[in-house]
């Protein structure tokens, strides 16, 4: 049980980090990034390839590019950079003045194509089998700590990284930069007419979100030692988004609650405790149906989530909102 709990802590930390990263892009900047999971995958594959060593030798059973043997903590830094680079390239293409629904379609297609390409090209990241036997960070200390102790130490490491990411996000969240992003999200022409260079700001938040996603991917592989296309289907992005929408867009603590409910309480626990029904795979498919329904229910009954964005108050006695169309 202790082993399972420490695994859950790592999953939750990585999922939460990813959710905060996507919230920056989607909640703050309004970018409908349905390709978010690709950034996490970029970080995960990068972590794997820079720790597995050169392709061939003991890992001859799998093929990959950029084989290296970087010492801790460099693989995590490189995985964050990889997420950032993919975000930069994709952002330069998609974040032009393009209608948001078209943007969403481009992101979705990119996510689908990326999985197909990586699955089909065996030389890239070992195709659909994915990469396995990825070394865990500082694996040498496993001997003295034991597997359980090591895993709790890793969980603590993830929690610390998570806290560092939260500190960064909260600092950014208080800034004029974040306010300018929200302004451009609501009305880009009006924001630009006030001197805000919206495209540049949006690219910046896109890259930062991509780096956080890449880091979360690296942290996940550091635990599970394997990564394959089955783990980063486009639908995974919707699970992250459901957590954000359920918890409260643009509220860091709301996102935390939503991510816990969707990614941990719902997905992990149902997988563990609910009996399999019907034919094999039916229960898993039903989980996605319920996630879709959950999204609709939240948007209908509580569109701003469980813990909505906090209103900035400067006036002690604000009046009640007036009806639209009144004076």
């Amino acid at each position, binding site marked *: 049980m202790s082993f399972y709990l420490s695994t859950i802590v790592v999953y939750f930390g990585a999922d939460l980090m990813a959710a905060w990263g996507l919230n920056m892009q989607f909640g703050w900047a309004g970018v409908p990034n349905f390709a978010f999971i690709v950034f996490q995958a970029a970080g995960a594959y990068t972590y794997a390839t820079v720790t597995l060593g050169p392709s061939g030798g003991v890992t001859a059973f799998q093929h990959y590019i950029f084989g290296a043997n970087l010492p801790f903590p460099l693989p995590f830094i490189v995985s964050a950079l990889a997420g950032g680079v993919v975000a930069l390239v994709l952002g330069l293409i998609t974040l032009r003045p393009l209608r948001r629904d078209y943007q969403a379609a481009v992101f979705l297609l990119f996510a689908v194509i990326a999985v197909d390409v990586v699955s089909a090209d065996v030389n890239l990241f070992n195709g659909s089998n994915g990469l396995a036997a990825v070394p865990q960070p500082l694996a040498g200390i496993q001997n003295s700590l034991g597997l359980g102790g090591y895993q709790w130490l890793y969980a603590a490491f993830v929690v610390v990284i998570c806290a560092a990411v939260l500190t960064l996000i909260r600092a950014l969240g208080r800034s004029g930069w974040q306010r300018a992003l929200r302004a451009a999200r609501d009305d880009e022409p009006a924001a630009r007419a006030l001197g805000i260079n919206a495209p540049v700001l949006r690219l910046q938040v896109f890259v930062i979100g991509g780096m956080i996603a890449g880091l979360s991917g690296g942290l996940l592989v550091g635990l599970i030692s394997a990564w394959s296309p089955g783990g980063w289907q486009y639908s995974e992005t919707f699970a992250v988004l459901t957590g954000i929408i359920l918890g409260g867009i643009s509220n860091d603590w709301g996102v935390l609650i939503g991510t816990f409910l969707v990614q941990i309480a719902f997905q992990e626990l149902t997988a563990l405790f609910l009996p399999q029904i019907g034919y094999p795979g039916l229960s898993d498919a039903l989980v996605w149906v319920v996630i879709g329904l959950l999204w609709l229910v939240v948007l209908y009954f509580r569109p701003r989530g469980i813990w909505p964005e906090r209103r900035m108050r400067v*006036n002690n006695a604000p009046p009640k*909102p007036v009806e639209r169309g009144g*004076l």
Partner: protein
Amino acid sequence: MLQARPDEAAGRIDHAVLDVRDVRVRYGGVEAVSGAALKIEAPQVVGLIGPNGAGKSSLLAAIGGQAQSASGSVVLLGEDVTRLPPHRRARLGIIRTFQTAGVFDGLTAFENLLVAGVGEEGSTLRAALGTRAQSRRRTQAASDLARQVLEEFEIWHIADLYGRELSGGQRRLVEIARCLMRSPKLLLLDEPTVGVAPHLVDRIGEHCKRIRESGVAILIVEHSMEVISTICDRVIVMASGQVIDDGPFDVVMQSGSVKEAYLA
């Protein structure tokens, strides 16, 4: 608050605030503005009138940078801004409102002003990653000004309402108040009184006059002749993408150009 700095005023005294020459705006095969020209000296409120489709909003867009001019030039205080993107023009002092009030719905009224008030330096990622003391100082200055402007516009009581919670008239007032946070040199107002209750129309007119008195030039697109006659020092008439008359309200009205434009 709205006074131009003495050194700026002294350095640029020879130039018109705005000098537009032979501007053409095309949308596909349609030419919305066909070689329009106008000049505005500060402090002046200039009305831009004409029937629907005359090219008024397109001309405003060409001046603000929302539409690219296919030819001609837009010169602000002696500086050619024709090829500059809208945010660069805004930084130089061309600030505008839109036909549909461009209030940021997810920001409170106060934040709507703050986002304009911290300026481009306060909106950078570098500033966001800087020290808290720096950012607090910058925000404090903008907050003080935002409060002052909201009080002058008599809308301090709605400071904490989100843009989406405001009425049509309040949205207009917030949008105009927000412009003043940027210390504009030229204010472009696109139909600021449309859908606004009569008592607020008067208030918008009064604010325009006050803004002019602080040394800012205003170019206003407006359909209400009452508003135009009350606040404008000069009226420019457009029809079919061209400027067909320019002068004081009474003179333009008597010249028949307005009748001609609206009946054409």
